């Protein structure tokens, strides 16, 4: 897989409790990215925030089991790949934010050290 020069970064913000066909939305998005052969995706859990639903999302207080922490998925790939992913995400993310920005790839290396 090659990835160099100008690329796009997608950031998708939603809640940890959001679901897609019964599974966590963030997992479903990572699986969709793999299916579309996207270069990479990373899920981050925030510690506090608010967003589209305007409810303050706060993860578990020490003892309570109810958490709905803010989650962000970051994806980097070429413009064409990202363009293919967006309609899919559009269908999956019901309540959230998708932002796109331009990035310049300065390094992308595989495990075997093979550089693209």
């Amino acid at each position, binding site marked *: *897989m090659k*990835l160099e020069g100008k*690329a796009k*970064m997608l950031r998708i913000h939603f809640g940890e409790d959001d679901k897609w066909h019964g599974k966590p939305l*963030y*997992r479903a998005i*990572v699986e969709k*990215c*793999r299916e579309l052969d996207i*270069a*990479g*995706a*990373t*899920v*981050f*859990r925030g510690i506090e925030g*608010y967003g589209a639903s*305007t*409810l*303050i999302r706060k993860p578990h207080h020490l003892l309570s089991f109810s958490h709905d922490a803010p*989650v962000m998925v*970051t994806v*980097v790939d070429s413009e064409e790949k990202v363009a293919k992913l967006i309609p899919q995400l559009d269908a999956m993310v019901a309540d959230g934010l998708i932002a796109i*920005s*331009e*990035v*310049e*790839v*300065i*390094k*992308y*290396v*595989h*495990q075997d*050290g093979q550089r693209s």
Partner: protein
Amino acid sequence: MLSAGPAKKVTIYVGEDHKYHGQSLYSAILDFLFYRGIAGASVVRGIAGFGADHHMHTIRIERLTENLPIRIEFVESAEKVEELMPKLHQMAGTGLIEVQDTLVVKPSEESPKAAVKGAAVALKREGRAKLMRIFIGENDKWHDKPLYQALVEAMRANDVAGVTVYQGILGYGANRRIHKDGALHLSHDRPIMMSVVDDEAKLRSFAKILDEMVQQGLVVLSDVDVIKYTHEVPPAEKEARK
């Protein structure tokens, strides 16, 4: 800062149980006033009262907290009050807002200690810079120490302005291996993202060092606008103090 002379006193009456976007209304209003630079505000809890809904709110032994009346008060200049009013109007919902003319005889003052701290040059630096994001795995090593830690040390040693390490909960990258925070196994290999902001020249020169240290992963650069507050002493002053 509020000065002596004519001013407005605003009083907002709400219920203790009223909510604003899932948060208690009075603390949401107080936060709003605080972050919009109001000189000071107080919240007073009443012991009984009723409002538009003609529902008696009272402290009873058997019902300790029964939506008691809350009064939020602040004194500000007429312009500031006018500026904040539309938002307060929207936030207060069913509550009542009252504005009175008042006269500030003596404005409150910052404690001398706080004033000195404020004077200690809070520099605001603005401008274009680059944001570098480095995606690696938590288990990646460099000379037997975690790579992210080695990178932070290398950045400090090279005077890079600042870096933050984030730990992801799920992801995959260059090597197609899923990094996952498994609940039951202890071997974590979570995704790591490091976010570095500095000027382009600094980051480009650090990229060479980075290139030797990162064996697998992704490094991207993007443009950012920097809006920074710092207590750092400017270099000229630093020289003078020597």
